[in-house]
């Protein structure tokens, strides 16, 4: 059986856990989530890092409409499959201490989401891509709606309508493209081969961009994000910020720019400016946030803005930076939200001003928090630096001023992150934080794994960069040729 198919189907099988009960459930789920990871490593072992698509799966699905069940992995997909399968076990392990009601359903939804995400990251058929895109949305809706905070219903509605609005417009664009194909197909290569006039490509670009920009989110389509991150249960926030938003970024690389290269030539700069605006805008908002989760949510908008900017600069450094930064951001943001979860659960508040001095009583947490935070603010020898360095070079190759403005994130990031660290961890203890317990077994395991990843990738990023390099250069070359021809 095809390894890729196995990787996607196994989590689907795991949704049967919904019917399981018992105290060992979380451990069982964790063990099950390791299987796709192991498969991924096996796949990585036999993966040839060139531009070709490997592990191809191709079945007829709805033949009359030219819809095929077509999957495959090149270096770009490989990175994202790795990201998904690496982070899901961490998320499951991180939630194992949480007293979620109906844990079976909870883990089943996570597994269902994993399948949907993997489908998105490997689909070579636009219809299949769309199916995966929506399939990944359903579980997160329920996760947020059932296990979320007080405001969850209102916030969830906003999130859902935002996303659906974007993806429906994308669906229209997909159907339109399908109707243009000479061979009546949804195949990605047929889409790439279309040579539509520039103004139509402009519309296609806008339609896809809207869907992806909402998902990432890029300024000014971001207002669902802080609300949702704040209200969602921590596992939901981790899924959303760690993996799900990468769907949007992946979509930009795989679909948006190659499908509408002339549209990109026309609108790319606008998209880039929006991304950079988002970096500065979200960073500045993060300065004065009083809710700790909301602060990190805004910081995530800033970081994703930089990733988007690197992609829209569309050169090897920028896109490669985006590839590795997707992984890094996933690791860092999950670490960050896990730390916040530990703190919030113990103090029973999200308000920064009622915290302080925690480092005194919880040195273990303080160290892990600091390492994750340093990764987030892109200190050299942490993973964040590799990504941001390449991204900023990418943007620099596009325009030096954009890079200087985007580079302000280095300063602003330090300001809001260290402010938060100071207010939460340093200073004097108060009544609330006096009895704070340091991290214990499982929490320590999760955080140590994350910290090791943060430092390891920062010190030796080359193997990861190598995975996607050929595929990225090839894609960029293709698109640039199409733009040049015009």
């Amino acid at each position, binding site marked *: 059986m095809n390894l890729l198919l196995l990787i996607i189907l196994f989590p689907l099988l795991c949704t049967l856990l919904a019917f399981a009960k018992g105290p060992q459930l979380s451990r069982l789920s964790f063990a099950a989530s390791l299987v796709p990871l192991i498969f991924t490593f096996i796949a990585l072992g036999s993966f040839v890092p060139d531009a070709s698509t490997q592990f191809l799966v191709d079945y007829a699905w709805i033949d009359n409409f030219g819809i095929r069940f077509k999957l495959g992995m090149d270096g770009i997909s490989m990175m994202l499959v790795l990201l998904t399968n690496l982070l899901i076990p961490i998320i499951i392990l991180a939630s194992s201490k949480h007293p979620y009601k109906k844990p079976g359903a909870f883990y089943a939804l996570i597994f269902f989401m994993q399948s949907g995400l993997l489908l998105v990251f490997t689909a070579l058929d636009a219809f299949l891509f769309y199916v995966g895109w929506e399939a990944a949305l359903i579980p997160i809706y329920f996760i947020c709606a059932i296990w979320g905070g007080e405001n969850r219903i209102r916030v969830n509605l906003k999130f859902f309508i935002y996303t659906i609005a974007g993806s429906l417009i994308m669906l229209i664009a997909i159907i339109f493209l399908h109707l243009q194909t000479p061979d009546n197909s949804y195949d990605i290569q047929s889409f790439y081969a279309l040579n539509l006039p520039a103004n139509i490509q402009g519309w296609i670009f806008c339609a896809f961009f809207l869907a992806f920009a909402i998902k990432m989110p890029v300024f000014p389509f971001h207002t669902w994000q802080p609300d949702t991150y704040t209200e969602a249960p921590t596992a939901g926030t981790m899924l959303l910020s760690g993996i799900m938003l990468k769907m949007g970024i992946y979509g930009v690389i795989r679909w948006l720019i190659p499908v509408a290269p002339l549209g990109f030539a026309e609108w790319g700069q606008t998209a880039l400016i929006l991304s950079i605006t988002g970096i500065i805008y979200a960073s500045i908002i993060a300065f004065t946030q009083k809710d700790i989760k909301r602060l990190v949510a805004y910081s995530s908008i800033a970081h994703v803005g930089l990733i988007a900017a690197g992609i829209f600069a569309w050169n090897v450094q920028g896109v490669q930076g985006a590839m590795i930064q997707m992984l890094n951001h996933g690791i860092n943001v999950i670490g960050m939200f896990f730390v916040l979860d530990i703190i919030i659960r113990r103090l029973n508040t999200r308000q920064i001003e009622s915290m302080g001095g925690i480092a005194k009583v919880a040195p273990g947490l303080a160290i892990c928090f600091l390492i994750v935070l340093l990764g987030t603010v892109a200190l050299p020898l942490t993973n964040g630096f590799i990504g941001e360095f390449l991204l900023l070079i990418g943007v620099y190759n596009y325009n030096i001023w954009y890079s200087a403005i985007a580079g302000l994130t*280095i300063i602003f990031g330090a300001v809001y992150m260290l402010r938060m660290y100071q207010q939460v961890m340093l200073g004097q203890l108060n009544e609330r934080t006096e009895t704070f317990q340091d991290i214990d077994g499982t929490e320590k395991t999760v955080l140590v794994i994350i910290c090791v990843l943060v430092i390891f990738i920062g010190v030796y990023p080359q193997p990861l960069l190598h995975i996607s390099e050929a595929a990225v250069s090839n894609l960029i070359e293709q698109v640039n040729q199409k733009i040049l021809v015009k």
Partner: protein
Amino acid sequence: MINLVWLIPLFPLIGFLINGLGRNILPKSVVGFIGSLTILLSFGVSLGIFFELNASEIKSFTIPLFDWISAGTILVPFSFLVDPLSTLMLLIVTGIGFLIHVYSTGYMHHDAGFNKFFSYLNLFIFFMLLLVLGSNYVIMFIGWEGVGLCSYLLIGFWFTNISYASAAKKAFVMNRIGDLGFLIAIFLLFSTFGSVEFSRIFPQAAQMASGDNMLILITALLFVGAIGKSAQLPLFTWLPDAMAGPTPVSALIHAATMVTAGIYMIARSNILFTLAPQTLSAVAFIGIATAIVAALIALTQTDIKKVLAYSTVSQLGYMFLGLGVGAYTGAFFHVITHAFFKALLFLGAGSVIHAMSNEQDMRNMGGLKSKLSVTFLTMMIGTIAIAGLPPFSGFFSKDEILAHVYEHNKLLWIVGVGGAMLTAFYMFRMMFLTFYGNFRGTPEQKHHLHESPGSMTIPLIILAVLSAIGGFIGLPEVLGGTHWLANFLSPVFAVSTSKSVGLTLDHSTEFLLMGISVAGALAAAIFAYFKYVKRSHVPVPDSVPRPALLNLSYNKFYFDEVYRAAFTRPLDALSGFFFKVIDKLGIDGLVNGFGSGATEASKGFRLLQSGNTGFYIFMMVAGVVALFVYGFYKI
């Protein structure tokens, strides 16, 4: 031996890992031993490399380790560069680092965070060595930011005090402002030279015309980086606040090593700077301005560590002044001598603070000369050295810089000598207030007064010896020396030297210049003696109002207040505006507007559904009629 250069940063890293991971298990003595030993081992290797390099014909070795980042045309190898400049810096970092580690075993002995302290200190040395050894700008940048991190950790070492934590944050953020400049300079270097390796950039740059716009931009941005790291105007305010950290940290990081990284970087990039004379003028101008402003502030400070901090800022200003006039050797010479005497002074101050039970205010000291005789003597040597009195080290290095400045611009020289006089005054003021006169502290403090243990005084004595004789490595020809340092460093600065005119002063002028500056410093010292010893003047308590000018100096020219009003407050206000107005009202308002628009429309339309059957029938008939009309007339 040179091939083993990777061992030098490895030892402190191992020390950091052992001390860091074992901080809860290992006893203090083991931690202190491991911490110091690793640095000593690094020092040993550095010494071996130094002798090998000194004997070698080739003066520059690149030792590649592995490829760190590669993407497209960008390649960043992880490799080290051994040349005279990096070797000397290695000796300073590991040598003084070792002494300060030994000192810390005594100074920090009673602190609960002893183990944590040593692991941070080892980590700092590791990053500092990366900075020094990196064979390209990106590796240098790793060290550059890494030392910033350690500085953050160590300033905020006693983090339960929120103002200390704030000082740490301030240092990190201000450093980051400079780092952004450095980073963009790296990008420019990439696109201009296609590489960040020193060995590829400098030969290419040497071919470029002087005053090339790209070079000016690159050097200006590099200089922005140096301003942040080396605490120059306008980013100097973090350094005095950084004195919140333990005193050995102030000595090691905020005096001897980290803050001189900016000078090291510019000296390393001397070819680029020489070819960008406009930037060099800016360097000189900012250097002298910082030297004077910091010296003026130091005149009225009453905290012993703050005096030393502003003195550091001021001395760093002199080093930049030296760089700015092209006296790279002189500036680096001052880095070395400054490392000796400023480390000595800080450690001495630490010894005083230790003896005074953590009292730092000089208004509560006085008359410590007899109780702390070793500390007093060694600090006195340091003070004479920094004041620039012969034959101690500071005299030679400062004089070399000032001679070049005189050659370059007479006005700058006058200001520079004025600054040197201020230096002599505030340093002797500090000595007299601390060690002369009557004891002004509490009886408990008086009872507790004691000379520090051997682990603290021995480093003081070694540093005092170095401060006294260290200047002879750069004994100028006019005094009958050969200037060994200049010869040793000449391969590094060869291109720059060939592109600029050397020192052409005749000997009599040089003697005259020396004479004037020595006389000035002596006069200032004597003035301080009369004011603080003969007349026993003591600065007034904070509650008593001061004259306006003194107040300005005492309050650091209100730099912090201005920055707060100009940057922090507006940004916070902007943050609130963005969040409340644009995000909540604007974008969310629009989004929610769609939702509420649909709701409102539905409220309007539902009125049509009146439930009145007659109305429904009427509408039906009207509809049929309308259809007919449409069918017949096609309207």
